[in-house]
């Protein structure tokens, strides 16, 4: 592997070298001719994504690390502008029937797969059904899709059993990749070898994946969106150690870094004139940090205890000290980045330890001889970083109001098993993705019918409120956007009142990149898009 690795690095260096020469030539040329706007073509960009994903195509997987990679080779039907409006990608036009039960997509013509075969409606129909059957989220997203009809070579129609108002938001490239039927048909989708060696229609073709080191994609010269892509190649690196990741971006070994960088280093990186620090999360699927209460616990089942906890912790302290300001305080289950559904008009629990103590006294839990009322366990998702620090802070803050808290740490798999299978927890400090629509990303966490032991990221607190269920179920099939929004507003108010989970912050997603790199952030997908617009200039 070492030799292969160094070989790749050498070739990277060579590529950079050639591209530099190309730029020099280009610059000289434009200098002579005085041509104004010439998009820089060529070059290579290395992106450190930190964690290495298990697959490169998300047809039957939702590995977060692969979000950055999947869309580069395998595209979907749509992309989205910054206001979340659908834009053409593999589909050039689409229409939804009045009743919301028929979706018709007109597909782009003259598109070929990386292996030279034509992209047709058959591939789309096959892929959507494959997603419905194999994709962990797709099973829910496409649950109401009854049939996919191929109308002709470049037109498909989706027939739904009930309206799914979020469906048009689901066709981002990393979320619903289109895969070639001729390579996937008749195989086990989840085990298809092309999941680790993608063949798609995207702007970049797969070259190699050296496990533990990097994955290389090169320019697809026959891309339908010619003259895009501008780059000759994209290299994904997997440098997970935070200190090494910082060193890599500072040394110019990678041009873009979305790995977990130590927050304390961000200010220093900001001062570097060659780097740009971007802190906006991709609005397509904002993450939130929250404290999930196990309502099966006798103490936490009491709403006064939950309210007391909310008053005992200072979210602003968490924002300023743990996240060093790289997060936004959150008072409800929807991140402000999901602007369409966010409502700022929610009850807020002020930091007020005195009130917390009062609530705990009222609940009948007086301080014992040792100064504590009762004891709870707290489990952070990770044994390090902000989740653990948040848990440490909770332990300290709750001790002050008389709740003894013991911290437990474990690896991620054990954490997931503890919360959702063993149900052996009191408070879990976790990150949860909002996804592109509350019906997909948020309903699962609060809907009483989604309390399923053994299913990760379901209703882990075992929250049951018939009114919340009703609002969620109504919103899931409501076609009118305005009414739908009202339903979700009512839902947010209700869960913030009941507080089955305490939403804490929505963390910034920090992207650090070389200032010569342009076109990284497109629409709401940002770096999860197909990357056709990325350029590297002089």
């Amino acid at each position, binding site marked *: 592997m070492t030799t292969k690795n160094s070989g790749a690095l050498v070739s990277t260096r060579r590529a950079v070298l050639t591209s530099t020469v190309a730029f020099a030539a280009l610059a000289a040329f434009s200098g002579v001719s005085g041509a104004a706007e010439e998009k820089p073509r060529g070059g290579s960009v290395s992106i450190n994504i930190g964690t290495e994903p298990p697959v490169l195509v998300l047809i039957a997987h939702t590995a977060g690390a692969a979000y950055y990679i999947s869309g580069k080779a395998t595209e979907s039907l749509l992309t989205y502008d910054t206001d979340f409006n659908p834009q053409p990608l593999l589909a050039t036009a689409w229409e939804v029937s009045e009743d919301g039960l028929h979706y018709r997509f007109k597909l782009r013509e003259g598109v070929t797969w990386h292996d030279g075969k034509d992209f047709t409606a058959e591939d789309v129909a096959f892929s959507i059904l494959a997603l419905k059957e194999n994709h962990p989220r797709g099973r829910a997203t496409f649950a109401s899709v009854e049939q996919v009809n191929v109308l002709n070579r470049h037109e498909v129609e989706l027939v739904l059993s009930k309206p799914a108002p979020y469906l048009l938001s689901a066709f981002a490239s990393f979320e619903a990749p289109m895969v070639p039927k001729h390579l996937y048909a008749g195989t086990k989708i989840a085990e298809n070898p092309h999941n680790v060696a993608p063949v798609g229609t995207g702007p970049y073709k797969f070259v190699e994946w050296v496990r533990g080191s990097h994955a290389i994609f090169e320019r697809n010269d026959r891309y339908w969106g010619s003259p895009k892509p501008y780059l000759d190649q994209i290299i994904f690196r997997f440098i997970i150690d935070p200190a090494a990741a910082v060193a890599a971006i500072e040394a110019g070994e990678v041009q873009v870094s979305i790995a977990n960088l*130590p927050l304390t280093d961000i200010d220093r990186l900001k001062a570097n004139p060659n780097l740009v620090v971007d802190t906006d999360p991709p609005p397509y699927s904002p993450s939130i940090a929250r404290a999930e209460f196990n309502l099966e616990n006798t103490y936490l089942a009491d709403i006064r205890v939950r309210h007391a906890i909310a008053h005992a912790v200072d979210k602003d302290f968490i924002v300023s*000290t743990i996240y060093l300001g790289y997060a936004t305080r959150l008072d409800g289950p929807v991140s402000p980045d999901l602007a369409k559904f966010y409502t700022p008009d929610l009850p807020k629990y002020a930091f007020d330890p005195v009130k917390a103590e009062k609530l705990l006294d009222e609940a009948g839990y007086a301080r014992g001889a040792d100064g504590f009322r009762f004891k709870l366990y707290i489990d952070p998702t990770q044994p390090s970083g902000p989740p*653990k620090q948040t848990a440490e802070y909770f332990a300290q803050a709750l001790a002050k109001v008389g709740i003894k808290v013991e911290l437990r740490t474990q690896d991620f798999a054990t954490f997931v098993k503890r919360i959702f299978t063993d149900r052996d927890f009191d408070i879990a400090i976790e990150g949860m993705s909002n996804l592109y629509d509350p019906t997909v990303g948020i309903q699962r966490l609060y809907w009483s019918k989604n309390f399923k032991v053994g299913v990760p990221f379901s209703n882990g607190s075992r929250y049951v409120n018939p009114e919340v269920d009703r609002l969620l179920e109504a919103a899931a099939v409501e076609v009118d956007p305005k009414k739908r929004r009202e339903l979700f507003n009512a839902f947010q108010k209700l869960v913030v009142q009941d507080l089955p989970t305490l939403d804490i912050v929505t963390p910034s997603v920090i992207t650090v990149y070389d200032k010569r790199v342009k076109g990284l952030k497109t629409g709401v997908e940002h770096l999860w898009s197909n990357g056709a617009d990325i350029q590297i200039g002089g």
Partner: protein
Amino acid sequence: MSTTDIATLRGVATDRQVEAAEQPAPPTPAEAPSWSNMRAPDARSQQSAAVSVTNGRRALKVFLSNPNALFGTGFLAFVILIALIAPVIYPGDPLSMVGRPFLWPGQNPAFPLGTDSLGRDVLAGIVHGARISLFVGLVATALSLTFGVVLGAVAGYFGGRIDDLLVRLIEIFQTPPSFVLLVVLVAIARPSATTVTLAIAIISWPTVARLTRAEFRAIREKDFVVAARSLGYGHRRIIFSEILPNALPPIIVTSSVMVATAILMESALSFMGLGDPNVVSWGSMIGTGRELVRTAWYLTALPGLAIVVTVLALNLIGDGLNDALNPRFSQEG
């Protein structure tokens, strides 16, 4: 322990050393050259009583005249003292967030060694960390010594099928890389000071067991053991009163190094986030400070220094004990 046995200890130990080089060599008892071919323990008892006392004193003298060993002992005593008085000088939870985050050492007299990223007092952490490090180091070593010595003694003394069986058992534990085994054990059990200590003991006892077994195999054929057997001593008495005291010196030396190793292993576990999250240890302080090494290096350097000096002290003590107890070096004293 009878004086006879202590006396033979020296002779036997020398035996073993020489044997390693050219075997079988005539035993040359260190303190009794005139009786170098003496084989009957009881015949020698009169003289050796005096010899043994000198030996114990001599060992202590050698140890105390070694400046490195003295430094090690002194520093270890200091760390033990700090650990004992930690709750007095820093009452309360060392994990509580008491000050402004990222105060550098010396910046605020209330926090002489500064504060970490969450505003926790670094000095309080180091002082309380000494308790955990020493607790884990000493208890894990004590456990693995007990277990390892008993099993090694039984295997070495009885030999045969018992030996085969126990050696296989030891090999099972020695086959996987010990630190990987440690990580697996701690990941399965919930990390806490107790589980970490037990896990370290589980991976360290095979070393002791092997060492003890080798000693016992060497000693059990010695004449004084044969004599003890012919006098009708029981197995237990022979193992614990006759052979074990003679086998102890290398085990004592090893154990001081084992304490150091256990402290390092606990630190490594905490560094990886597998330590007990409810207590401060030096390793966990380094682990949380690691990400900040470019901006606040003191957060890793200070607890790191504590580990380095403590482990160094234990190693110096180990060297000193080795010099004092190993008869090969005893002639010049």
